[in-house]
């Protein structure tokens, strides 16, 4: 812990972390998440780059991203926009092609995933040389903010059901705050066919199937403050469909 106090304790490490930030109408959130990422990476000294994959957001997210690139530099902020909304799964694939790090962080840009956990992910990964470290809302100090009883019940119920049916070896299947070794993510993405919400579930289930090692870090999930969720709606229906598909195919 003492080493944290020195200015750049991890600067000599060979490792580089690419953060994939898919955005769709995140004009208000993007500057804030980038600021926080720069803050925590700056403090911990790890080598990093932020890759913003914007899908032609009508709210002008890309212009904000360009401004951020001017402020923080083109080596730190990379823009890999696409012309129209093509979905989250392909956004990761698109972003990965341009990643130069040997590790890849996947997180939401809506501030529900806080960059303060990033050093913990990295330490956890190093501790067990894990192939994948997954954030979990369901264990230890992990948790949520802004959820009513109904949402907690659905979330816990769905989680219990998927634990029983799939035994995935990770406590948070639908969370999407994760750290992967680049090669591991490459091989997983190649195999995963699901869209949207179920994609995250499939990734971790396939990881277990391929005998990749999984570490977990408790995270607090704070509901987005700005903008609105793009998935929402038939979340339960797509969860059940995804669960059945994974149950029958993995």
């Amino acid at each position, binding site marked *: 812990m003492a080493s944290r106090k020195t200015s750049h304790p991890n600067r000599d490490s060979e490792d580089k972390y690419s953060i994939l930030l898919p955005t769709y109408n995140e*004009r*208000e959130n993007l*500057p*804030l998440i980038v*600021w*926080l990422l720069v803050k925590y990476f700056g403090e911990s000294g790890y080598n990093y780059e932020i890759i913003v994959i914007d899908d032609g957001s009508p709210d002008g997210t890309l212009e*904000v991203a360009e*401004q*951020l690139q001017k*402020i923080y530099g083109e080596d730190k902020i990379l823009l890999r926009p696409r012309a129209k909304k093509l979905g989250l799964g392909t956004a990761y694939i698109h972003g990965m092609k341009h990643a130069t790090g040997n590790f890849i962080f996947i997180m939401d840009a809506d*501030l529900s995933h*806080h960059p303060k956990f990033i050093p913990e992910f990295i330490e956890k990964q190093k501790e067990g040389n894990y192939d994948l470290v997954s954030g979990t809302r*369901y264990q230890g*100090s*992990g*948790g*949520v*903010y*802004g*959820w009513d*009883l109904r949402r*907690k*019940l659905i*979330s*816990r*119920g769905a*989680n*219990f059901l998927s634990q*029983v*049916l*799939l*035994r995935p070896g990770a406590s948070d299947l639908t969370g999407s705050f994760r750290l992967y070794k680049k090669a591991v993510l490459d091989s997983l993405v190649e195999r995963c066919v699901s869209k949207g919400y179920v994609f995250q579930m499939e990734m971790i289930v396939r990881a277990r199937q391929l005998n990749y090692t999984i570490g977990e870090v408790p995270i*607090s*999930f*704070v509901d987005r*403050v700005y903008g609105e969720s793009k998935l929402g709606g038939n979340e339960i229906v797509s969860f059940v469909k995804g669960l059945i598909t*994974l*149950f*029958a*195919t*993995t």
Partner: protein
Amino acid sequence: MTKLLEWLFGVSLVGAVWALVSFDLLDLSLPQTYREVAWPMPLYLLVSFGCYSLATVGYRVATFNDCEEAAKELQGQIKEAKEDLRRRGLKM
């Protein structure tokens, strides 16, 4: 083997053992008590698993952490970030 097949395999195994004992299919002349205990076993298992599930989910809902602190910290940092970004010339 897919999870579906694992489940089917497990369930048929248990089902087979249950049928063997309950109906004494192999004519092992098991004591009557064995058969009486085995016969309603599936129902007991189902009910206890149901209770276990409800209790577990209920407990986990009740102990789901509310991260008040995290939300407050984030609010503070959002303010700080906005000020700093404005200073650096970001037009929001």
